[in-house]
């Protein structure tokens, strides 16, 4: 009787959920709790999203303005993620192929972000260099009649 019950129990366990299945559920529950914790901390402000789409802080300490290329990247990321979610929810598995156009879309958005960041960084760096050059020229003008070597010697002493 005991052996039969054990056998039935094992068969039921195999039909309902075997060991790999249990591990899968454990990981799924863990991921769910992790996602919940992240959402909770974001809502409480412990994970700060205030600079999510902002440019880096400027050299003079001002907070950066919002970046449209980052905003676009964010929108496209959400659109593709939600689209995948709908397909997975309806079909029950990951789609067999991802259209090349989706990769092209992410490439356009990502490329625009990288180029925009490069242009902005170039602008900030150039303006900072020009500001330093301007200050140096101003200092030289304030000390007229001195040779550059004499001025350098004074600076070193």
């Amino acid at each position: 009787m005991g052996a039969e019950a054990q056998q039935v129990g094992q068969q039921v366990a195999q039909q309902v959920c075997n060991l790999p299945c249990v591990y899968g559920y454990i990981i799924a529950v863990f991921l769910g709790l992790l996602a919940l914790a992240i959402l909770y901390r974001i809502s409480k402000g412990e994970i700060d999203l205030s600079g999510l789409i902002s440019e880096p802080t400027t050299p003079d300490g001002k907070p950066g303005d919002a970046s449209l290329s980052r905003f676009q990247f964010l929108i496209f990321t959400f659109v593709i993620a939600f689209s995948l979610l709908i397909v997975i929810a309806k079909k029950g598995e990951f789609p067999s192929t991802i259209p090349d156009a989706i990769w092209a879309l992410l490439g356009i958005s990502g490329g625009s972000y990288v180029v925009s960041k490069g242009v902005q960084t170039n602008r900030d760096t150039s303006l900072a260099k020009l500001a330093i050059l301007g200050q140096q020229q101003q200092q030289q003008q304030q000390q007229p009649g001195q040779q550059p070597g004499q001025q350098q010697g004074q600076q070193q002493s």
Partner: protein
Amino acid sequence: MVTLLAWEMGLFLGGLAAIVFYQMLTGRINLQGLLWEKNGAADYSWGRVQLLFFTVIFAIIYIGKVMQMQDFNQLPEIRPEVLALLGGSNLAYLGQKMYNLLRELPKV
């Protein structure tokens, strides 16, 4: 288990989108200067306005296409004309950005 994971993914993405949207509305996520020229003058940039317009329109249309799908074997295709439009819009935005940079830096 797929159902559980799909629910988790949906709740996480939905929650994240809701939080991001709410924080954008309340100003916690900085949106200042999103449509301004980056020259300190706070002028509106038409390159940015058109890029934002096409981005939002595309997002709405694509999500609508996904919701109306009958066959869920793969994501909906994006027509080459639409890709070209988005690419052109981005090029216009970047072109204006570079033009403003060249105009802003004094000529040596």
